[in-house]
């Protein structure tokens, strides 16, 4: 037994000594290639995961044994033409670059059905859809008459009029709506027989609680911002003066902050552009801390006497949209887009910023790290998914920020955010001209008003089972909003 044990030990040790380095080299992407006369060569891989799964994979026209999700290994550096086919779905095709030791990862490929299954939701005719982002609701307008504005609760699949229990004569015409992402409260201006009034509506599961706040928000709903957790505190700019209105107490605090040329609110904090400084305070204006106080940098970012929209995404990441649509940030290289920016959306998990311009949609990849000689900060990389277009009017991330849905005129399109998947997607559907669409990431559905009849319909872009909740989102917007409304 002793002898056998010793012999076997040496055999096992020898197997390990040979197998272990080979296994690790293989895992690292090395293969033995006698035909190249180089012996071991470094290879790369392509990882493809589709929704739905089970697509056949063709690499340079050759069908692979694996169906998606598939790891295609032992690929030498170079470009590969990849096609994925699944019955009932459009082909997905892209030219994918492969580098040695690296895996080119496309883990959220959406296979689009050849024919959309359109689900009717509500009979119209509606003229417009007003998103109340990440709240669980959206509004459906059938003209400016407030009585014809419907609140749709897409989780409960129920609808109710914005104004209920009022006689027709008292229902004002809605002209302007202001929402805040994650809040189920809305502000809107309305024409009433007695003049222009400003209303606040708290959307709940079965009714909207509407109150007249004209006396508190004289400047109008435009530019008003509030924290979804504290919707009773509304902030707006009047010149260089930040005004705070407490809707619950019925109090207005003019001169809450002075010398402010832009502000934004996030996580119960105000992020404001002051005089040669960017700072952060709590909602009471206390606990002020500076985010940027370098005068030279400040003056290279901001122009004097201009007002900026401030978009805070965490304590140290701020974006600004200037009066000419310039997209700026407190991060190097500070200026990202020179003109024409209409709106932005940030995905924290993927660290991607979606940028909408009148003529383009692009993504700023903030997770991209510079691999140059010396790197002090991450170097964000901007790439445009579509350019030189017209009438670009809405864009949002879908499927975990792997895709962007954008509306160009009355056409809704899809584009893969990952650079190689630019051919994925394309035209999705056509909507009523001038009407917005609403995308619920929780459900993977796009809600829209159809062109012909003006009915509310939906299509499932991403099957619900394949959606992963955002770990950074602490409870859904709806839940947070409901709690805030309760308070």
């Amino acid at each position, binding site marked *: 037994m002793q002898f056998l044990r010793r012999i076997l030990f040496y055999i*096992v040790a020898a197997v390990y000594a040979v*197998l*272990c380095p080979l296994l690790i080299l293989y895992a*690292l992407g090395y293969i033995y290639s006698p035909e190249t006369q180089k012996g071991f060569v470094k290879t790369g*891989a392509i*990882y493809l995961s589709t929704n739905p799964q089970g697509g056949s994979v063709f690499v340079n026209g050759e069908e692979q044994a694996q169906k998606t999700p598939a790891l295609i290994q032992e690929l030498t550096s170079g470009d590969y033409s990849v096609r994925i086919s699944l019955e009932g779905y459009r082909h997905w095709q892209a030219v994918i670059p492969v580098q040695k030791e690296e895996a080119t990862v496309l883990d959220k490929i959406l296979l689009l059905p050849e024919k959309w299954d359109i689900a009717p939701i509500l009979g119209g005719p509606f003229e417009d859809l007003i998103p109340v982002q990440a709240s669980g609701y959206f509004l459906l307008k059938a003209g400016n008459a407030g009585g014809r504005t419907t609140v749709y609760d897409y989780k409960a699949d129920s609808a109710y009029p914005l104004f209920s229990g009022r006689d027709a004569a008292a229902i004002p015409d809605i002209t302007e709506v202001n929402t805040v992402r994650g809040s189920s409260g809305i502000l809107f201006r309305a024409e009433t027989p007695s003049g222009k009034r400003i209303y606040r509506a708290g959307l709940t599961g079965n009714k909207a609680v509407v109150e007249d706040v004209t006396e508190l928000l004289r400047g109008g709903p435009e530019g008003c911002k509030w924290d979804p957790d504290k919707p009773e505190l509304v902030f707006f700019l009047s010149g260089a003066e930040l005004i705070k209105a407490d809707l619950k107490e019925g109090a207005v605090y003019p001169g809450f902050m002075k010398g402010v040329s832009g502000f934004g609110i996030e996580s119960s904090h105000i992020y404001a552009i002051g005089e040669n400084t960017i700072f952060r305070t709590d909602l009471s204006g206390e606990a002020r801390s500076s985010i940027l106080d370098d005068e030279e940098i400040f003056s290279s970012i901001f122009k004097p006497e201009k007002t900026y929209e401030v978009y805070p995404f965490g304590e140290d990441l701020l974006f600004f949209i200037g009066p000419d649509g310039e997209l700026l940030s407190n991060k190097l290289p500070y200026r990202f887009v020179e003109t024409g920016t209409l709106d932005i959306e940030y995905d924290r998990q993927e660290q991607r910023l979606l940028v909408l311009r009148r003529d383009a949609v692009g993504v700023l990849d903030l*997770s991209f790290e510079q691999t140059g000689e010396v790197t002090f900060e991450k170097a964000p990389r901007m790439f445009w998914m579509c350019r030189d277009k017209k009438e670009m009017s809405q864009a949002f991330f879908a499927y975990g920020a792997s895709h962007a849905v954008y509306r160009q005129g009355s056409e809704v399109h899809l584009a893969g955010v990952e650079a190689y998947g630019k051919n994925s997607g394309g035209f999705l559907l056509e909507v009523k001209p001038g009407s917005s669409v609403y995308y619920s990431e929780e459900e993977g559905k796009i809600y829209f008003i159809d062109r012909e009849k003006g009915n509310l319909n939906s299509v499932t872009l991403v099957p619900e089972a394949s959606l992963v909740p955002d770990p950074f989102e602490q409870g859904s917007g709806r839940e947070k909003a409901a709690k805030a409304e309760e308070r």
Partner: protein
Amino acid sequence: MNFEFTAQGLTGGEKVVQRVLEIVPGAASWGIMIGMAVLARFYPLYAAVIIIAFYLYWLLKLLYMTFFLILSYLRLASERDTDWLKRARSVDRLEETLEQLEQAPRKDGLKERLSAYCYLKDLQRLRRQGERPPLFSEIYHLVIVPVAGEAKDVVEPGINSIARSVFPPERIIVILAVEERADEEVKKGAEEIREKYSSAFCDFLVEYHPDGIEGEARAKGANTTNAAKKAAEYLKGKHIPYRNVISSCFDSDTVIKPDYFAALTYYFMADPERERSSFQPVPVYNNNIWDAPGITRVLEAGSSFFQLIEATNPETLVTFSSHSMSFKALVETGYWPVDMISDDSAIFWKAFLRFDGNYKAVPMYTTVSMDAVVADNWWHTLKNVYKQKRRWAWGVENFPIVVRGFLKDRKISLTRKFKYAFKLFEGHVSWTTWAFLLTIIGWLPAFFAGKDYSHTVFYYSAPRITGTIFNLASISLLTSIALSLCLLPPMKDKKNLFRRAGYALQWLLMPFTIIFFSALPALDAQTRLMLGKYMTFWVTEKGRGSGRSAEGREPDTLTR
């Protein structure tokens, strides 16, 4: 070499060396785990490469051990029908027996052939090397059964099993070594057992070990040493030479087979170095296995398997639990350490150093059965399992003392010293770290993966490789399930098949079990030693059916 096998009463440099060596195993275990976690956080690719290398090492070692587990089991099975008494008697007529064996026709079955082959080899080696053993009729067995708090119903089945031995009971001396601090009920039970069985043996003694003797810890070794010293006086008085006496130290719940002492006598007689050997049977935990919860069964089967595998490597085998040795060697060694918890392995190391490495443990292919941990409810059972495993893992206390002994010894070769010290060290560190590496830390590189790592070929190929490794490792698991079923005792009820199937399925608890009832208690023990929070003896609560044996007591802390 005269070496004080103790960690007590050290001074100066020796105290410092002891303390440093106490820190080493725990520090190594914590260092490996924290180091890997930190590496996974900041350099996930490097961590993943190390983990793949480790997984492959683990797989090969597992398959290697499984192979020897099967061999060892076959060896055990081959001796199942052996007439040990006949074999032991045959050693008296060595030449004649060898002649018969060498001329005997080849046996039919594989097991019979294997048994006959080993028998022949044993006797040929004895003829070649050894000093002739005492005659069978001159050999006595001294059985010491320590009792700390175990009730009569736990102790008596073991005594009864000794009384039913095929070895002549008139040459068996039994000593119940009872702690003086034990409850009156326990003492009364011991006396009742003596009354009942005194006529069944050569002699039956009950020795009370006084509490609080200077230099002693509340440890089993102190009790057994006291009993062994009394036995030495007794044997002297009876003019029985120590070299003719085989001493066995049994846990109080140990139940032996009728031919156990016959088998032990054979192994003792057939071993040319019988006075420099301990004899180690395979412990199984079958006494109450059907009353024990699944986790306990899996763990106890794992312990039995470990001993079976170890049995194939007598070169580094160390005594564990119930074992036997020449009484002469025991006296010359200076008995069991009186201040250590892990006396069953410590006695081996003490003898190893006393005889300058000229000491070994001989595997015996026969079983002794003990109790699996069972308490009055499931939760208490789990707590007691945890404490029992921690006590076993406290065997790490041997490491600093053995290494100190090696540093002093000039006769043991450096290679052997390194081999033994490394095995002791590696055994304890792997006991602690492997389960964590396999179940938790191994996944950290993927968990912490940033874009740098998650876009490498390695990130995607590693899960496939580990998946294959784990699939191959299931061969070992299936083998373990099959062998554990073979080792099970017969059941009395009719739902045998269903319960056996349930038992097989309980092996699926393995990942949970090894973390919480193997690695964690081992880490606990090593950390205590590292921090100088020393343990003293804790009686494991065991029971059969509804009966319970002993009160569980919290471990005390011993200060040096």
